[in-house]
């Protein structure tokens, strides 16, 4: 029993790393732009496809492939603000956006998901693991790919937090999240920060999609279920709260992994949604949230 628990704990950390990359990106975008990116999962899938192209089609080494695929998704993410969000913002002026941004990113999600389906087909593409072999812990065997996921996700998120804390552009992102008008008054161009934030957020998803590709395969809808789950996580963590999103990701992943011991695995996905709904009923602003919805 103890060994089983430990085994699922390890699985929880691996999934938690992926969830965290994903949910922190959504949270970052929400905190800065006040927009929930429904198409986030498609950038995750895009990361997987980009890695597939880099490693399988072009035959590049895994490390180079992962960097390039993440960079490619970053570039795609950079386009979202100037091409889609800025025109709608401009059109709206000072009117309340209502659901329009949600509908916009929902449309982007359908567009991207089905474009990937049209180009790549619906089959599950296999990507070779970046690292082979593994660590034998006697009670269980941990593949190096899983270790890699935890390490890369952890280091990336650490780098992101340091960037936001100390770098001039990172501080500008935080400044815009807190007070856009004041940020403008000190010379921060909002458009550039919005563009960069979407690029970064999407790149995090793309990295996650690349990291998990060897374990999950790549297919167009690979990110969509994760998007819905990540919404639950971001709500638990308090919308807009990066640290909250990180902690909630780990918690949800571990609870999900351990729940297999207690409830049938086909109900696993209900845990995140169920918890989200329960938490919202008790605390409408999320576990760690302070903003009222």
């Amino acid at each position, binding site marked *: 029993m103890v060994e089983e628990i430990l085994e699922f704990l390890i699985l929880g950390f691996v999934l938690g790393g992926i969830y965290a990359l994903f949910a922190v990106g959504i949270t970052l975008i*929400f905190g800065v732009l006040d927009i*929930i990116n429904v198409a986030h999962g498609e950038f995750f899938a895009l990361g997987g496809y980009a890695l597939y192209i880099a490693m399988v089609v072009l035959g590049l080494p895994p490390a180079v492939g992962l960097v390039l695929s993440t960079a490619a998704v970053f570039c795609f993410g950079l386009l979202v603000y100037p091409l*889609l969000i800025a*025109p*709608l913002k401009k*059109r*709206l002026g000072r009117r309340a956006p*209502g*659901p*329009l941004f*949600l*509908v*916009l990113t*929902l*449309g*982007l*999600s*359908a*567009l*991207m*998901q*089905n*474009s990937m*389906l*049209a180009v790549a087909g619906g089959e599950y593409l296999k990507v070779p693991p970046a690292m082979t072999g593994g660590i034998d812990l006697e009670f269980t065997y941990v593949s190096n790919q899983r270790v890699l996921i935890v390490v890369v996700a952890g280091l990336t998120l650490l780098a992101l937090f340091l960037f936001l804390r100390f770098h001039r552009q990172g501080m500008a992102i935080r400044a815009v999240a807190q007070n856009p008008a004041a940020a403008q008054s000190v010379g921060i161009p909002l458009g550039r920060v919005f563009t960069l934030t979407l690029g970064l957020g999407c790149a995090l998803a793309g990295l996650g999609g690349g990291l998990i590709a060897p374990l999950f395969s790549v297919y167009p809808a690979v990110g*969509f279920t994760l998007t*819905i789950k990540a*919404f*639950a996580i971001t*709500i638990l963590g308090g*919308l807009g709260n990066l640290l909250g999103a990180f902690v909630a990701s780990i918690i949800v992943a571990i609870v999900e992994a351990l729940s297999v011991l207690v409830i*049938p695995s*086909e*109900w696993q*996905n*209900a845990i995140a*949604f*169920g918890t*989200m*709904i329960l938490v*919202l*009923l008790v605390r*409408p602003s999320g576990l760690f949230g302070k903003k009222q*919805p």
Partner: protein
Amino acid sequence: MTKTMRVALIGVPAVAGLALPLVWSHPFVLHIAIQALIWALFAASWDLLSGYTGQISFGHAGFFSIGAYTAAILTKTLALSSWIGMPAAFVLCGAVGLGVGFPALRLRGHYLALVTLGFGEIVLLVATNWESLTGGAFGMHDFGTFTGLSGDPLHQRQISYAIVAGITLTGLAVLLWITRRTEAGPAFRAIREDQVLAAALGINTTYYKLLAFTLSAAFAGLSGALYAYYIQLVSPSIGASSQSALVIGMAVFGGIGTIWGPFLGAILLFGITEALRFVGVVYNLIAVGAVMVVFVIFVPRGLAGLRLRRRGRVQRADRRAAESAASSG
């Protein structure tokens, strides 16, 4: 334009369009027309809650799915007539909508959208995993179509079309009547514009929000039941979030907040996507995504808004003229 002229201008082509599939009874045309009408009722039901009242549902396919399964289960397991199955789906989904609406009262905007999305996913999971009731991943079939249809396939389709068109148009009429002719309409709009202000004006926001939830879910469930009896196959995928996305796309296309806009938008968009099936199954869904993106940015009021906007411009010009006349006189 006089009112009679306008009614004639809209009414005559509408009646002609509706009658066409009965006259030109090609099975494929009927097949498309029936499904388009089902989607139209579904889109109008979404619009009542999300477009009209401003409470965004991202999980409306959940209600559609519950309605379809209710119809299928009642008919297959209990051998009940479709004339019991459809009202049952309507009532049950209304009750579920009320149940979802209660917790949703505390939530607004983003949070509500995400919770309804979670609701849709839970319905999907239940439909997939409760095999003894729902038939699991393969769903249910062979529960029969509308009760009392003849065996002749073409005749069967013609009658199905008449049933679906009748129920759907009645549904549309009821929704339009509620929003235009009862005090619920202004209350819904006030809630959409400013909940706090609406409450301050003495509008019972709790009651009207729950009313919108209940009605919207009931009609979504009814459209699900129509779907189940016509297609005679229900599976978990009819409750997938992509279905919710599709219905939102239809509503945006037609113009949210008008009830008839989404109704019309659904018929047109469904027609377009079915036509695109000949090009390739994927392309119709790409088209839906593209329509949503383009319309939200460039035509946020949808097809219905094209006319309204021009009228707004005329009104503004009139006002300006009146003002300048008043100031010079």
